[in-house]
């Protein structure tokens, strides 16, 4: 497997091999699937929409409904206006959503379709909305597309009435439905009244209730909540790359003060989330949460001899890789290779600062943005690690180099149950410490000589 990867590190500048990112539109589609009764719409060729639905279906094991403008040669020459008009009419006729969230593709961006002005000229039923976000695939990555669509919703729907609603806005960034539930649970335990956006709890892990309403599951951020975001008193947003720009937009447009915090993975980062909530609600941390935190720390203590100084390669999207780097440092592991495909150089500084905080010397690790898994594989060939931590496509490296692997981030295509469970919060921490320690101990058992093989560990 992957025998072609040479050990000599190639200074590649023109070819990407085994990408560590994908394109903007899938992020926009994912965001829109977290809004109640919303149909994501891809303005471009049929394939983009089909691929995005496929990758989302494979990760979440759920239907990911989205429509396409189904461009033909004619559309790409004369513009996609008539396609989008037909599409919007057809979508309301058959699927009857409340909102259609259109995102562009590299094709419609390049031919210069002005989707914003098309929408202004459309006949849209009174109680329905159509909005759009620009998501050219040849910029950024799927993370940028997600961020653009969060802002897209606010641009079209959010108002400031001047009467504060006493609520806190929470932008979770790109997380799984299980994380949404956990983040909302913590916010509720801390006594916060909140608007949560986008919310995939119940949309991309719709419980099997025999009701067949997979398209209208009565989940996702409600339209009314999106409108009311402008009256929120504070915003807690998670992840720099998913949520910084939307946070700035909230501040600029509605004067909402915000705290942009890392995704709350592990002890320290979950503490920050709880602290931010506490600042708002002025409430003491309830015993339930304190106990969870205590159990997580207890678990870390019990198992610390197995994680101490273990070298780990972490790869994936910038926000989640940052958060997991923090968790691994808490576990006294060494994040030896820290990689993202998203082209954001500021991220390298953030990871470096985190390493400094835990006293890891610069000679001990490599951190790189805007790169690919081919590069990661070359690094590993030169100096190996004890574990891989990232999305499913790393499994080929794991097999080639015989390294244990723990799956996290997006996409996880080859495991079931992952999106239902939490990664964030103390509960998510407990889950991942268990996964990491299990993987390391399984390897120890596998490699043990008969005389060293022991039930007591």
């Amino acid at each position, binding site marked *: *497997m*992957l*025998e*072609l990867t040479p050990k000599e590190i*190639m200074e*590649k500048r*023109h*070819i*990407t*091999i*085994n*990408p560590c990112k*994908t*394109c903007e*539109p899938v992020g926009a589609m994912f965001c829109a699937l977290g809004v109640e009764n919303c149909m994501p*719409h891809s303005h*471009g*060729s*049929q*394939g*983009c929409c*089909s*691929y995005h639905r*496929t990758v989302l*279906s494979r990760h979440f*094991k*759920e*239907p990911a*409904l*989205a*429509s*396409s*403008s*189904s*461009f*033909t*040669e004619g559309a*790409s020459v004369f513009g996609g206006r008539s396609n*989008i008009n*037909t*599409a*919007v009419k*057809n979508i309301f*006729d*058959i*699927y009857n959503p409340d909102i259609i969230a259109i995102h562009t*593709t*590299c*094709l419609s961006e*390049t*031919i210069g379709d002005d989707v914003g002005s098309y929408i202004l000229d459309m006949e849209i039923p009174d109680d329905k909305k159509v909005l759009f976000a620009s998501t*050219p695939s*040849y910029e950024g*990555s799927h993370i940028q597309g997600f961020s653009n669509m969060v802002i897209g919703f606010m641009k079209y729907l959010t108002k400031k009435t001047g009467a504060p609603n006493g609520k806190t806005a929470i932008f979770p960034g790109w997380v799984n439905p299980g994380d949404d539930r956990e983040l909302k649970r913590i916010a509720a335990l801390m006594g916060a009244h909140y608007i949560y956006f986008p919310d995939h709890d119940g949309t991309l892990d*719709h419980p099997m*209730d*025999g009701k*067949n309403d*997979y398209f209208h599951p009565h989940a996702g951020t409600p339209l009314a909540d999106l409108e009311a975001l402008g009256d929120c008193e504070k915003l807690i947003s998670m992840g720099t790359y998913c949520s910084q720009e939307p946070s700035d937009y909230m501040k600029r447009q509605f004067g909402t003060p915000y705290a942009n915090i890392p995704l709350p993975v592990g002890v320290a980062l979950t503490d920050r989330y709880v602290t931010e909530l506490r600042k708002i609600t002025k409430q003491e941390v309830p015993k339930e949460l304190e106990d969870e935190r205590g159990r997580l720390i207890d678990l870390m203590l019990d198992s610390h001899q197995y994680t101490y100084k273990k070298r780990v390669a972490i790869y994936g999207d910038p926000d989640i890789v940052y958060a997991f780097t923090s968790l691994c440092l808490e576990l006294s592991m060494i994040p030896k290779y820290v990689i993202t495909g998203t082209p954001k150089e500021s991220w390298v500084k953030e990871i470096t600062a985190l390493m400094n905080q835990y006293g890891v010397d610069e000679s001990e690790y490599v951190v790189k943005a805007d790169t690919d898994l081919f590069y990661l594989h070359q690094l590993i060939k030169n100096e190996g690690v004890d574990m891989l931590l990232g999305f499913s*496509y790393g499994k080929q490296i794991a097999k080639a180099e015989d390294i244990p692997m723990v799956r996290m981030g997006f996409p996880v295509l080859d495991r079931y149950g992952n999106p239902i469970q939490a990664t964030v919060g103390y509960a998510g921490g407990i889950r991942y410490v268990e996964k990491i320690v299990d993987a390391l101990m399984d390897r120890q058992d596998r490699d043990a000589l008969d005389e060293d093989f022991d039930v007591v560990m």
Partner: protein
Amino acid sequence: MGNILDARKNSILFKDDCGGQGSGICCDSDSVSGAVSQRACVYCGARVVLNPITDAYHIIHGPIGCSSYTWDIRGSLTSGEDIYRNSFSTDLQETDIIFGGVRKLEAAVDELMNAHRSAKLIFIYATCIVGVIGDDVDAVCRTKSAQYEIPVIPVKSPGFSGNKSTGYRMACDAIMEVLCPHKTEKKHGTINILGDFNLAGEMWIIKNYFKKIGIEVICGFTGDARYDDMCRAPGASLNIVQCAGSSTYLAQRMEEEFGIPYIKVSFFGVEDTTASLVRVAEALGDEAAREKAVMFCMEETEKLQGFLAKYTKSLKGKKAAIYVGGGFKAISLIRQFAVVGIQTVLVGTQTGKKEEYEVIESLVDQDTVILDDANPAELETFMKEKGADILVGGVKERPLAYKLGVAFCDHNHERKHPLAGFEGVYNFTREIDRSINNPVWEYVKVL
């Protein structure tokens, strides 16, 4: 029917009792905007056909998405090289879109060739955006081909230039570019297998059958194919076409260029597998092989009797819905379901042809729903109306079926066991039984 679009009415047919007039279904047309087609694009069609060529470098010239979504997408197994399981892309950025991506593409090929001097074959796929900005991919391929003395082949597959079937043609044209320089004397009694992609090792099963009956297979297209084998393919005396949708065009072109005749076959189900093996031997005029094929199939069929009888007990009377890529697969599936007493009540395809729909219509019972390029709303409506117990489909249909409380069988890229040949009959039957008769459905019904 509230949720059927006017524009799609002619793509849906209800078989009536005065049938046999031939299918009047509207197919092979562009998808309706906003209808939520389950289809992909031209590039996808080209990629899925070419991707299983194991020792080729498949470079996607375009933004990152097109390559990342098709990275190791197929479940096509290899007995040798695994270069095809990597994802190569020029990852075009905004400046490349403005100033053109040709230089980046040339540099990408150079970098690849510097690192991998033993590369034998490169395909360069031009996606949507490249079609629009007008990069001269042909010229790059010519230059690089001359420079490195290996075939560097353009696959012109902008997503908007038709539907998935157009992509199949582009892939077949690319294969022909590899084959054409290797015209050779034909070796009597040898065949190529076209339109099998070695999903879960199916190509190996079929090749093994031909070995047993004494027929030499020169090359498979494209499952587990290697460049060297492809070069010998023009020497075969017969082509057999399994996936008609993707590979009939290749067979036609090979007939024109190399004078190789072709026949269409299917290895799904007992009936089709037996008929196909015998027909191939007959087409070669190989009486010994014909006798061996008949004997072999009789033995295998005999072995299956007890097995099928056992499963028929638990499956008889169930109703099936089929929504697959091509028409030929749908036809085989209707027959396979009939063997265990399952009636097909809905059948549709993404890219079926008119003749295939005619056969489908002749096979199914009255009132069966037949649809082309269906969307989830239509599938839901008709599966509920017809009381389907199981859906056969691909990636996007699986969760749809489950959410509707219907069993599922993947007949596309996500199966881990082969469904072709006699082995496939065991796997297919067990799989549909496991899903239809799974105890989990009892919990769903309780609610």
